């Protein structure tokens, strides 16, 4: 059983700053889960705790029910770093970097076996970088750079993958390619946790969301967690709201709205705060279902009052 669990994790840095307090979380396989919060909300602290890069002051992390140290030994968790954390001038090729995902299973001298080479080739083909395998990593475009590290995570054959801000500075085409790949991995039963501050892309591909602001505010299915109230709590004043019904758009254009943005996908909410998806396919009954739910909730409430 694939699980990722944080139990009341508190992290206090030597400077005295408590970056995370009492954070509890339990995720299981077959999900793409977004970790959403402002800068400084403890996203990377939570990531580092889950990866075992830092030891919580209180609380614990367990992976598949085992301690983090064992998860590291077994290469259960793969990590895709932010592009800014990588030294792109390093004299390593695309192939070398992806091979680093295989070091965990290699002998002392790290001499690749045929199975390692096969895994690297398969991973590189999957992200479409096989033809560029001999390039020095600095000779890649921004989108290709990102995919190298996704390929390394694939080569590691870990079933739990953590991605740190995978879409910053990446063109829309690459973003969609990565999202398609993550969906495939979810279908294969992997557990994927993606930290992001890009709200708009979350409903597009994440079925679960964790909202974080110094602690875990709430987590669960995107439809339930991604509400205006929760987001306001998570982001405080840092979120810019644009409400169409208070704007001139409705009066002029009969609610026909097109939203264009350059890199960040906007989060679009409907009239009473339901999520608006770009593709309505499979979600046609969204509004009526919601009304049904609300009616039921009202009836239950009325029933309770009559008692």
């Amino acid at each position, binding site marked *: 059983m694939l699980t990722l669990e944080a139990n009341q994790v508190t992290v206090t840095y*030597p400077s005295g700053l408590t970056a995370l307090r009492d954070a509890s979380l339990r995720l299981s396989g077959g999900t793409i889960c977004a970790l959403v919060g402002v800068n400084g909300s403890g996203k990377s602290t939570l990531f580092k705790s889950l*990866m*075992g*890069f830092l030891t919580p002051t209180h609380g614990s992390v367990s992976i598949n029910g085992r301690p983090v*140290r064992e998860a*590291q*030994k077994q*290469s259960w*968790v*793969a*990590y895709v*770093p932010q592009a800014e*954390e*990588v*030294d792109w001038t*390093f*004299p*390593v*090729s695309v192939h*070398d*970097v992806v091979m*680093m*995902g295989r*070091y*965990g299973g290699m002998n*002392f*001298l*790290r001499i690749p076996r045929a199975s390692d080479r096969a895994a690297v080739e398969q991973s590189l083909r999957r992200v479409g970088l096989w033809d560029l395998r001999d390039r*020095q990593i600095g000779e890649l475009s921004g989108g290709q750079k990102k995919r190298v590290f996704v390929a*390394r995570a694939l080569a*590691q054959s870990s079933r739990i993958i953590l991605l740190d801000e995978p879409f910053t500075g990446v063109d829309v085409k690459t973003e969609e390619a990565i999202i398609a790949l993550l969906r495939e991995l979810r279908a294969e039963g992997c557990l994927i946790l993606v930290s992001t501050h890009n709200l708009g892309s979350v409903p597009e591909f994440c079925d679960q969301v964790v909202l974080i602001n110094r602690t875990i505010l709430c987590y669960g299915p995107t439809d339930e967690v991604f509400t205006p109230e929760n987001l306001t709590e998570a982001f405080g004043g840092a979120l810019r709201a644009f409400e169409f019904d208070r704007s001139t758009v409705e009066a002029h254009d009969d609610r026909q709205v097109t939203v264009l943005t350059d890199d960040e996908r906007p989060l679009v909410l409907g009239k009473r705060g339901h999520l608006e998806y770009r593709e309505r396919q499979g979600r046609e009954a969204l509004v009526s279902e919601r009304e049904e739910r609300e009616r039921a909730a009202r009836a239950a409430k009325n029933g309770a009052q009559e008692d």
Partner: protein
Amino acid sequence: MNALLDPFRFGFMLEAFAMGALLGAVAAVLSCFLVLRGWSLMGDAVSHAVLPGIVLASMSGLPLAVGAFVSGLFCAVASGWIKAHTRLKEDTAMGVAFTGLFALGLVLMSKHVSDLHLDHVLFGNILGIPRPQLIEATVLSVLVLAAVLMLRRDLLLVAFDPAQARALGRPVAALNYTLLTLLSLSIVTSMQLVGLLLVIAMLITPGATAFLLARRFDEMLLKAVLSAVGSALVGIYVSFFLNGSPAACIVLVQALVFVGALLFAPGKGLLRRA
């Protein structure tokens, strides 16, 4: 014509060629890691910091190498500790630690009368190496070289992406200390032959040259070693005719090779850019 072959007629010159090439190769391999990690000044720091250890070892009759090794490693560990426990950056911490230790060495030396001369420590002597020292240096060099080459994939991973190294459960701190230990050993070995001032260059320049010339790490190692060995042979050969310091000639040739790489590196050289 015969005059050009003169350097090869003397036993002490042949020994110098061999030791220069061997020490150069060891330093070159280490320099690749130091350059990539941004630790270039670590060689500088450790090589100065060995001085108090050498003087204390000489006072107490221990092998100089032991004292040098302990105080060199102490400097590296102390800088790391200062950096971790204050808001100071690593270069500052290192600067304070190694200059302090070097000064301590100078003070101790002035209080201690012996056959230990500052000149020998600073500039070394590769011509006329005593037999025991020759054997000791050879054994240590071969050991350090073998250890670095065996650990190179893990050391490279830690340099390139420490997070991935940790995610795979590699002992990152232990690998860092191993690299520092190997560095200290290499400095101690080279110091008595080429002197501590020029060890610094041998621990930076070949790696820097190879970085300009290589696109893969193993290629970088090979080019660093080739440039260091070539520079050692040419430098010692030239020093015979100039009657100059062999170590200085080696480093000068290394610097010229670096300039050559800077200007003419395929595709990246300053004069090759279209």
